């Protein structure tokens, strides 16, 4: 299907690429269908584009790129909801806030986007873990890693 998006203009979306967020994403509960998009040389960043609303797209980051020791347990309930059978099914991303001063970009490690790439099911998983917050300043974290 063809759709018009804010960031990519006209976009051809293959039905097989659509990931279903059955609970939506907090604040956007009505939007259930998303696609993961990457741009050339954009790693560790990618996009989570809503298929239901072309204006809605989140920047994602691979959390391990700036926080190599990031780890969390996923609830049994979520594992069955996403039909996860093994670790290879799972991809994890963090929603990234990019302010005008991009050096202050931050990632939400408390509520990562967890996707079963094989079953095409996703969720924003809100963990009960005080080690992580909704705002980790990415460049600051990288500096810490370098020390």
């Amino acid at each position, binding site marked *: 299907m063809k759709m018009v998006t804010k960031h990519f203009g006209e976009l051809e979306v293959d039905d097989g690429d659509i990931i279903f967020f059955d609970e939506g994403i907090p604040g956007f509960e009505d939007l259930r269908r998303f696609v993961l998009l990457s741009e050339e040389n954009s790693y*560790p960043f*990618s996009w989570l584009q809503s298929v239901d609303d072309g204006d809605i797209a989140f920047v994602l980051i691979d959390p391990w790129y700036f926080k190599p020791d990031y780890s969390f347990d996923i609830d049994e309930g979520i594992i069955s909801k996403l039909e996860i059978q093994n670790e290879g099914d799972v991809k994890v991303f963090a929603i990234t806030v990019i302010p005008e001063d991009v050096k202050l970009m931050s990632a*939400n490690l408390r509520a990562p986007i967890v996707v079963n790439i094989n079953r095409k099911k996703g969720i924003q998983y809100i963990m009960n873990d005080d080690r992580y917050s909704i705002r980790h300043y990415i460049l600051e974290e990288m500096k810490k890693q370098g020390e």
Partner: protein
Amino acid sequence: MLVLTRKKNQSILIGDLIEVYVLDIEGDKVKIGINAPKNVPIVRREIKEIIEENKKALETPNIALEELSKLMKIQK
């Protein structure tokens, strides 16, 4: 902040319409039950923060991800 001590199965009233029960206590977890009118929104605090952060994430300035990626590599 008003601080009250309650035991399991005891409750507090907020105004006439809202009642908050302590249903169970296990280690550092407390199970809470709330009776409130339907028009009173009740969410876990962190969900409200996550909703706000998600909304903020949409206000991305017009910058190519490739530029951000370069910024990261300089940092590394």
